[in-house]
């Protein structure tokens, strides 16, 4: 299930090193030739490897941006508009790969989701297989999200609905609005706290990768545990995100 990202990168690197530039024959660096600057045919690597990065979650976005600009200057189709048709095609593919990788990695949540995807975690599948298990055993499916969070989400949604109805009829209930405002502040705090929690799991994940890089063996259980914690935090975050958005929408116009 969980394929090792590190070995993927290692494989890609050797693959790269074995090849030489199609145009001048010099050793090929990555997406373009370091010697003559020509765009190279795309190699199937993940987004981290594309930027020459290890699959760690703490990354400096400013450095990533700089790297993105530098690579754009080499790969963008506008700057290869007069090259041969093969090169133009590679430039288009490499450039779109670059844009996809940058868009994914610069955003902390997308970056985490992408790593989970690389590690073979499929959020949707988890829920579906739990339902199938419940069906087979006749037991009640264990909810991925804690019941008290579900309860809270449901209650606040009821209040929001009340607020929307009142607004439609032109009524105004300052007490209800105050109550929702209070919830909103608490939710935003929770949202922020969840992100901090996520970052703490990044740290343990990155530590694990560093150990692997140093040649130490990391037990599969430990790896899975680090991933599961991130999945859990992202799941809870989805509810809070929707709630904050809905609260903001409902409050807009009522003020």
């Amino acid at each position: 299930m969980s394929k090792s990202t590190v070995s993927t990168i290692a494989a890609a690197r050797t693959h790269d090193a074995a090849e030489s530039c199609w145009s001048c024959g010099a050793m090929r660096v990555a997406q373009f030739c370091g010697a003559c600057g020509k765009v190279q045919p795309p190699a199937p690597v993940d987004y981290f490897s594309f930027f020459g990065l290890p699959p760690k979650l703490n990354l400096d976005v400013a450095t990533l941006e700089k790297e993105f600009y530098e690579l754009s200057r080499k790969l963008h189709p506008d700057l290869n508009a007069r090259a041969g048709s093969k090169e133009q095609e590679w430039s288009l593919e490499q450039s779109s790969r670059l844009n996809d990788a940058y868009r994914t990695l610069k955003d902390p949540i997308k970056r985490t989701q992408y790593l989970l995807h690389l590690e073979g975690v499929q959020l949707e599948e988890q829920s579906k297989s739990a339902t199938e298990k419940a069906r087979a055993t006749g037991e009640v499916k264990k909810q991925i999200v804690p019941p008290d969070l579900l309860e809270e989400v449901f209650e606040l949604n009821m209040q929001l609905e009340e607020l929307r109805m009142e607004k439609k009829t032109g009524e105004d209930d300052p007490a209800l609005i105050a109550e929702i405002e209070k919830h909103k502040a608490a939710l935003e705090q929770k949202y922020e706290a969840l992100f901090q929690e996520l970052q703490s799991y990044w740290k343990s994940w990155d530590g694990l990768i560093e150990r692997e890089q140093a040649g130490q063996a990391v037990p599969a259980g430990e790896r899975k545990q680090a991933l599961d914690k991130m999945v859990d935090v992202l799941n809870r975050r989805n509810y809070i995100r929707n709630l904050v958005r809905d609260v903001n929408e409902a409050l807009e116009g009522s003020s």
Partner: protein
Amino acid sequence: MTTDRIVGIDLGTTNSLVAFMQGESPVVIPGEDGLNLVPSVVALDENNQPVIGSSARRYLIETPERAVYSVKRLMGRGVEDVQEELKLFPFRLADDLQPGEVLRIKLGDKTFTPPEISALILRQLKRNAERHFGGPVSKAVITVPAYFNDAQRQATKDAGRIAGLEVLRLVNEPTAASLAYGLDQKQNGIIAVYDLGGGTFDISILKLHDGIFEVIATNGDTHLGGDDIDNLLITIALDDIRGDMNLDLRRNAEAVQAIRKSVIEAKIALSSQASAKLDVELRGGRRYQREVTREQFEQLIQPIIDRTVGPCKQAMKDAGLKPEQIDEAVLVGGSTRIPKVRALVKELFQREPHSDLNPDEVVALGAAVQANILGGGSVATENMLLLDVTPLSLGIEVAGGVTDKIILRNSTIPASATQFYTTQIDGQANVAMCPRASSAAARKRKSKYSPATASPTSRSRA
């Protein structure tokens, strides 16, 4: 370089221009009449020969059934999309149009598709450039509103092809303008380009960094511009004439065009004067005269220019920026000459807008810069690179008519996405792929079937 001469073209709703990079700066190539702007007007003369630009203008009044303007509004659109336009513009569609067929417009007793009419304008620009260079021109960069959808872009490319031009790139108008702005500003920072033209409105927010022009967010309205102001004033004038003189001229194309000419002159005058006079000679020696003050004018147009506020706020939201984080607001498009529009931009971005550039020419100049970059660059454009975005989310229509968005709007292009789909029934051998583009506006239109009972709660997905 001579064999690879690439020009930049602004194919506008009201005016079109062609420009190129002369040495290290972009310049507009004038027409035979010595003017930089070629009015986007096409007419057929007495011998059914096409007349383009300033010389076609007189046909709008003399033989309106043989002339057409603002055809950009019809590019890439079907009969069902243009019903609103038909109420406001004197477009005369071919009588035998079938639903789903490409639009055809009547000029005299001939019919033309919108790309064919645009091609006539492009061909005129091509001729102007060829006369200037004394040699053939076959490659161009053409600008389009950032918020144009795929069909509208395709129609623009078709127009280029019909005119005998290889269209190397379509560049978004506000982005093109930013290239012209950035060429002589040479500074890093965040800029907002507010582009209110004859028929379209675009707002783009860009990050300028050592020659990289990275679009962060873009938004707009492909049916909002100076035309809407003209139409409002025309409607008011027609009402006046009906009320005061008991004359119903709404179906009188010549009179409407005469009024249109007069309101446009008044509109332009009001940008520099406190009042202006509408003065139209009507048939039978009668005259319609009315004084319009700037204050009245500003009150009238407020609802129209207010429609630019929503897209600006959405673009800032998408970019994750507050007004104070934007270093400069750049004005593009003829309608930004209106003082009230400038005041609105100042309020929106909390700073005096940058207005050193000629708002009519800056898009064409930017297209020339992009043409130069594609042609291999020069000293002035060295290190310049434009990273643009897709203005609309792109998706694949899946079973049940749901569009599964796979590339979100404001993603840097080129972009790619991979999504796995399963077949709907066992043994299915074929699938139909239906790419879809969607904007916030389209979503709003489609969400009209909100529940009658307010019981279950629905929300739209980001």
